[in-house]
């Protein structure tokens, strides 16, 4: 639903040739000012790969299907087919995965890799622009350090893509960006082609704690006033641009509105081009935001952390808003005090969209275990969810919430071959990602140390190239 607008916008960008063109440069060929929507375009290039057939494996296709003794064929970076008996042509690499499992690559909707990298020195702390409560003008991608060793660790945990977000100090923290887990020399090299932007927002304790002594907001009611004023400002800004284009089309010579980077981003949310990812723990905070969303006609894609989603899972299902959750984190602050271990399966059982997320450079390495804990705790509470359905929490639902499900997030013919071969049932503590494929290329092979990524930071240091 968000993505149609996005396509229209992208075609607009192409027509506008990607630059801010001032009117009056050439009076005989007057053109309206068009703002470039993609000034930092992706330069991602898939690694060339051989056709690969993985056979004799248990396959979870990521959309509820399970195949025993199955096979998966990848070619040209795409998934060709999956089934039980697939033929391999002469030059296909064949992997016999007897006893092993295959799933879609894991997608983490909430990572701060690169913006809060290791080593976590103050000089690397680039995740929170704590200078004003609304900083929609900042973009996480401008803070990402591609040499964060955390990317390689996450890859070894089967993570093929992630959204990197600003922190939660601000009501509006700035744009998040979706990346392939293949960092290279500059951040554009890992940007997921065609992925819409996210906007990080935050409910509750963090903004009021950060700004309580800095002019506010200092309360939850102050927070909500802050969001609403920001949206009202964005509406007014958009009306100015709409009027500008209307007058232009009517043959008048309107003055271009002053460009405001903050309101640019907020207006794109109101147009459905940027997806809102909102840090929100408490059920009542989420309930308030569902009404703010209605008031200003925008869409919250996901409530992140969502520790109390189980209390309002029916309302979240009705509003079609996802919850990104931990399996069992709780108690580190008041708004996390009511965390329970059945949150994820209870949200799923209410037919709301459930996502397992990390918000952690350690958690991102074991998201399969987080899903496994939630799955098992759900079963013990009488919520009988299959493993095949539960895998939606790790790949398909994150991909949908990020607007990239047409490209990845499930094992379906024609999709990007983002695939993990697990040593055993990935709902086990002992399961390890043996092979990780991104766009069909084997980018991590646990049994081949030469294949392990080593960041620049790790070169020449103790433990370089060690198993991590």
């Amino acid at each position: 639903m968000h993505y149609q607008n996005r396509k229209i916008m992208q075609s607009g960008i192409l027509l506008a040739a990607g630059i801010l063109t001032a009117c009056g440069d050439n009076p005989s060929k007057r053109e309206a000012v068009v703002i470039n929507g993609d000034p930092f375009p992706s330069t991602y290039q898939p690694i060339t790969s051989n056709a690969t057939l993985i056979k004799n494996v248990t396959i979870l296709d990521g959309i509820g299907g399970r195949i025993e003794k199955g096979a998966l064929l990848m070619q040209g970076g795409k998934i060709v087919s999956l089934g039980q008996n697939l033929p391999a042509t002469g030059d296909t690499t064949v992997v016999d995965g007897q006893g092993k499992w295959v799933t879609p690559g894991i997608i983490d909707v909430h990572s701060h890799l690169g913006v809060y990298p290791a080593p976590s020195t103050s000089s690397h702390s680039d995740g929170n622009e704590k200078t004003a409560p609304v900083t929609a003008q900042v973009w996480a991608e401008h803070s990402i350090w591609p040499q964060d060793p955390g990317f390689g660790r996450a890859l070894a945990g089967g993570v093929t893509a992630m959204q990197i977000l600003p922190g939660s100090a601000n009501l509006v923290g700035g744009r998040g960006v979706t990346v392939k887990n293949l960092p290279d020399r500059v951040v554009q090299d890992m940007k997921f082609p065609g992925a819409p932007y996210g906007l990080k927002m935050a409910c509750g304790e963090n903004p009021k704690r950060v700004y309580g002594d800095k002019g506010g907001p200092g309360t939850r009611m102050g927070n909500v006033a802050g969001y609403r004023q920001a949206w009202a400002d964005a509406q007014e800004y958009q009306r100015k641009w709409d009027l500008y284009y209307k007058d232009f089309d009517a043959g008048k010579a309107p003055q271009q509105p002053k460009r405001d980077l903050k309101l640019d981003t907020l207006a794109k949310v109101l147009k459905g081009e940027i997806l809102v990812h909102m840090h929100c723990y408490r059920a009542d905070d989420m309930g308030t935001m569902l009404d703010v969303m209605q008031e200003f006609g925008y869409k919250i894609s996901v409530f992140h952390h969502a520790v109390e989603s189980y209390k309002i899972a029916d309302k979240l299902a009705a509003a079609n808003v996802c919850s990104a959750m931990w399996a069992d984190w709780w108690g580190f602050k008041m708004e996390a005090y009511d965390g329970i271990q059945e949150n994820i399966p209870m949200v799923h059982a209410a037919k709301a969209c459930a996502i397992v997320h990390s918000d952690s450079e350690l958690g991102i390495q074991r998201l399969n275990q987080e899903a496994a804990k939630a799955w098992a705790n759900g079963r013990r509470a009488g919520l009988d969810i299959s493993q095949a359905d539960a895998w939606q929490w790790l790949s398909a639902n994150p991909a949908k919430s990020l607007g990239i499900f047409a490209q990845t997030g499930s094992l379906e013919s024609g999709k990007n071959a983002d695939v993990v071969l697990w040593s055993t049932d990935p709902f086990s503590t002992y399961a390890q990602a043996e092979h990780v494929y991104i766009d069909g290329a084997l980018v991590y092979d646990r049994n081949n140390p030469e294949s392990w990524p080593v960041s620049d930071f790790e070169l020449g240091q103790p433990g370089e190239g060690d198993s991590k």
Partner: protein
Amino acid sequence: MKALLSFIITCMLCSSLQAQNYAIVGATVHTMGPKGTLENATVLIQNDKIQAVLTGDADLQAYKVIDAKGKVITPGLIGAHTSLGLVEVSSSAGTVDSEVSPVNFSTVGAAADVSFGINPDSSLMNISRIAGVTSAASSVTHSSQLFSGQGAMITLGDKTQPIIKPRAFMGVNMSNSGADNIGGSRALLWVALEQAISETEFFGPKGLSPAQQWHGELARADLQALWPVVNGDIPLIIDARRAADIRQVIAFKQRHPKLHIVLLQATEGWRVADELAANDIAVILNPESNLPYAFDQLGATMANAARLDKAGVMVAIGMESHNIRLAKQHAGNAVANGLAWSQGLAALTINPAIIYKIDTLVGSLEADKQADLVIWSGDPLEVTQTAEQVFIKGQLLDMQSRQTKLRDRYLDLQQDRPMNYVRP
């Protein structure tokens, strides 16, 4: 099926919550003691003690019999490094007894004594114990002084007397953050530690009356707290991470052979594993910490626990508070990265008991030890398996917590009145 079995076990017992004698039959029992692992075994509990762990037939007439066929029994897990009982909500929520600020009567922080602050009614207690954690080391986690003070060994099974052993260990931070607190440099940090030790050695066990003069740098309360450390009565838990710092710790022990030294974190311990083993220094670590968070943790790897164990170093796992219940997952991941399974379980049970010198009481299932044990649905190190029934001091625990009650209240959202009227 598992849920059904669990239901049967629970309801066989729901009428009897007071102490009595139990015979738990049919499980695979990992004693973590000399008897090793026994299949289809019987655990006899008499009052608060393990009476016997045996195989074969036995007369069970005097016991309440619990069928645990197909289950796994282990000793109760011991939280190796926690703040249980000292913290309810960590941030912006009032007093947190695991965080201390400097005071003038304690110049180096050693005097702090958390045994005064343990709250057995903390919600973390029930949440942790129904997940199999039956006792813990609890201590200050945030201090800007040299020492983090005296920690306590606690039980999660007693709502009136939670302390097993007060003043059971002392903490000191010799990592980057320790140096940041003390003069900004190891050049001063280590001098501070050596001075504290030498003043305490000089001071001795004798104590001072207020009228007696004392011109040392350490406050009297600190000297008193440090004497059992210097005398080797309680362990000194030293946080050190890089190989160079760990070598300093080894040299420190060689200078002060009487001290009982245990390493905390030891991120690069694997690089010094043989020396640690030769010097009989045990390690409490988080096996999942595999990132170079600072320049004193560059060699971080999930293989640390396995490599240390292989060299003969005793390893304990479990550094958490709100989620100390995840220690079993941490140990499972150490096993996935090379640690022997039995050592993974030892790292949660007998090893911390030995480190904290409470192994005559808990840590293994042996006759006359305290009856702290867990009946698991399966392999406890598996993330999908859970504690189905926990015993502490021979008492069958009510397997509820604030979290299970929240779950049960909200399992059905369709109510005809506000949720505050729904009693789970």
